[in-house]
Each structure stands twice: as structure tokens, then as C-alpha cells.
């Protein structure tokens, strides 16, 4: 019984460490991909005037992170299968590592995407990139700083518990 309890506590500590590590990793990947998407979007609109559904399809193949959930929801939105509110709800459900303010800004950007003439659209994308880039830098730094730190901390905590109980 005691051994089972020790193992359970140790596993829980490790799991919490892994979850925290994953959280920082997810945020870093998401914002890096979102920033790259903005660059792709700018190029596709500036040079090819490519339509949004084609751009989204292309980017769905390029990325392999949680941003694809956002793209899938957005595709449904532009095809008329999701309302504004349902699109926002989808972000809450699937991208729960985002902060409230970030979710609002991202939803606002995507809902208005494609509604403007070329220059205005490119300016909106630039503004959004300027908003996202500091968050991306912060997410990279925090991932570097905290993800392994928290993982090691909880691993250490697990080991301490094991030692104490033994």
C-alpha cells in the first residue's frame, strides 16, 4: 500500500511537470506558427492575391501544431458552417493554453480577415503581427526558462516525496 502511494505521488509530480512543460511548448509552437502564418499570408496576398480558402489549405499542410485546429475552425467559419460565436467558442475549447485577451484578439483578427481591400488587409496583418511578435518572443523565452525548470522541479519534488516516505 505504502509503495503504491509513493509511486502514485511520484507519477503525479512527474505528470504535473510534463503538463507544465507541454503548456509552455504549446504556446511557443502556436505563436511561432501564427507568426509564420502571418508572413505566408502577407506573401500570398501581396504577390498572388490568393483567396483565403486556398491560403488556409496550403498552410494546413505546412504546420503540424495546434494552429491547425484554428485553421480547421476558420475554414468552417468561412464556409458558413460556424457563426462568429461558434468560432470563438471553438477557440476556447481547442486552444485552452491561450489567455483570454489573446483569444479575443485572435478571434477578432480571423473574423475580419478578407474583409478589406489589399493595402488595408496587408496593414491589418502587419498590425496583428506586431501584436503577436512580442507574445511569441515572450512564449519562446518562457519556454526556455520555465519548461525544463518546472519539469525538473516537479521531478525533484517527486523524488523528495519518495525519500520522505521511504
Amino acid at each position: 500500500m505504502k509503495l503504491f502511494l509513493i509511486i502514485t505521488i511520484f507519477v503525479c509530480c512527474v505528470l504535473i511537470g510534463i503538463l507544465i512543460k507541454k503548456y509552455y511548448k504549446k504556446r511557443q509552437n502556436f505563436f511561432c506558427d501564427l507568426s509564420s502564418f502571418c508572413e505566408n499570408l502577407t506573401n500570398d496576398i501581396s504577390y498572388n492575391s490568393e483567396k483565403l480558402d486556398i491560403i488556409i489549405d496550403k498552410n494546413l499542410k505546412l504546420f503540424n501544431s495546434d494552429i491547425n485546429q484554428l485553421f480547421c475552425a476558420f475554414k468552417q467559419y468561412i464556409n458558413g458552417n460556424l457563426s462568429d460565436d461558434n468560432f470563438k467558442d471553438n477557440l476556447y475549447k481547442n486552444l485552452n493554453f491561450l489567455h483570454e485577451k489573446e483569444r479575443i484578439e485572435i478571434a477578432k483578427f480571423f473574423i475580419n480577415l478578407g474583409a478589406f481591400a489589399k493595402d488595408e488587409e496587408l496593414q491589418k496583418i502587419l498590425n496583428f503581427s506586431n501584436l503577436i511578435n512580442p507574445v511569441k518572443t515572450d512564449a519562446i523565452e518562457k519556454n526556455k526558462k520555465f519548461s525544463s525548470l518546472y519539469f525538473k522541479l516537479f521531478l525533484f519534488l517527486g523524488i523528495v516525496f519518495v525519500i520522505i516516505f521511504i
Partner: protein
Amino acid sequence: MLKNLVPDYFFEILNKTPIDKINEIRLRLDKKAVVMIGNKSYYLSLNGLTGNAEKAYEVNKDLIDEIVKKACENSVYAFNYQIKNAYLTVLGGIRIGLTGEAVYEKGTIKTLKNINGLAIRLPHEVRGCSLPLLPYLFKQDFLNTLIVSPPGAGKTTMIRDIIYQISQKGYCYNVLLCDERFEVANCFNGKPTLDVGNFCDTLSGTTKTYAFERGIRSLRPDIIVTDEISHLQDYESIMYASTCGVSVLASIHAKSLEDLKTKKDFEILFKNKVFSRIVILSTKDGPGTIEAIYDENLRFVSL
């Protein structure tokens, strides 16, 4: 077609009208919505058609913006060429005329902003509408033909049917369609969404000058078809085609032969007797009514 263009709530309102018979929907910002059926205009109310302006549905900015966004397949920036030329052509051949404020850059119109009015024109494929006309358009070969009518009198529908009938009647003419505004064949991803027959090649979105010059060189057309010629460059393109031994079918806005004679620069086509058939259409007995046919000497050809 219309269902994908307008918001659901507005489609529900339209659904309370004889929707299949609507020719045109007029939406003007802060004004009452109007639909045209045949030659008559009606206000659109929440319960269908009405003659009472007070009961009519008032158009708001959101409705206009949403229709424009949907018409542009959520990519307004990709349709700038059309928007700056004050129109949009939607899948299925729906044509939308736009009003708003022009934005200038270096002396030319860059785009249209604050769009405040839409004239949504719904296409109707009237199969066989050109059949009474066809016997007058051939004398061994296809005669250079000009379809003349005011807006909304069925020029585009007539032209589309002539192209279709040419391939159906076994004439085996190669037809090159210069569809500058995507209105005749309404190509979507390169595929015509309106039937223009088996012998028709379509060059969409290009100027008439480009289509006539390149098309004649590379596609060996017997007949070149174009909609709505309007200025000297278009007339010169037609002159060029007729001197290359290619027949031309074109259309132009005018109410009568007299109107046509007063058009600036048009006299080069008259002087050179380019068109052997000038067909005047009206809406007298509904769009596409053939009023008169004239020959190259502007003599009446009996119907």
C-alpha cells in the same frame, strides 16, 4: 446561387417572394430594399413583396458588407480589379453593380470604399431565346452581328444562347468568347458555370484587345464573341478581327439605332460597314424582345 450570396435571414425574406422570377435586387444604404420582377419594381418586406414603402425592409451597412464579403469568397482583396471597376461577378453568373466612394492613387482609381449600394442582377438561362434570330445571322458563314439594347433587356442572355445554339445546331464553328467580366460563361476556377456549348473557348477577365489579338493568333476562332463594347479600343479590336477574316458577335448599350449613331467613336464601325446585322432588343414583351434587325447599310431586315 442566391443562398450562398446573402445572409440567411435575408434569404428567408427573399424566399417569401417568387424568388425564381426575380431579375434584380436593389440594395441602397438606409433605403428600402427593392426587387424587380419582369419590368416591375416592388418593395421587399419581411412578409414578401409589398407596394407600401413604410412596410419595406430597410437596408443596413452590415447587410451590404456581408454580401460583398460573400461575393468575394471572403477575400475582398482578391477582387480588387472588379471592385475598382464597380462590379462583382459571382459563381452562377450573378452580377453585382457597386456604388461607393472611389479611392484615387496617382490619378487612377485604386479601389472603391464605403460601398453603399448593390444592384444584384440574377442571370436567367433562357434556352432557345435566340432561335427566332438565328436564321438572320447566317449567310454561308456567320455574319458580324451587334446586339443593341439598354441595360437589362437581355443582351447577355441572348449572346449566351446564340453561342450555345451555334454548337447545338451542328455549325461546328470554333467560338472564342472574350468574357471580360465573367458574365457570359461565368468561369469559376477555369470552368464555365453557365452552358456555352461544346465549341466555345473562353478567355475570362482579359481586356478585349488582349483577347482578340492573342485569341486570333493562337486559337483559330471562326467567331469571336464579346459582351458590352464601349470605347474606341473595343471598336478597334473588332475592326482588327473583321480584317482577319473572323466573324464577330458583340453587344452594346443603346436604345435604338439613332442612339448608336451618336455614340462617340462608334462611326468607325458604321463607316466600315463592319456589322452585317444590328439587332435591337427591348423589354416591350419582356427582356429579349427583338424590336428590329438592320443590315450593314442600316436597312431594315424584315422579321
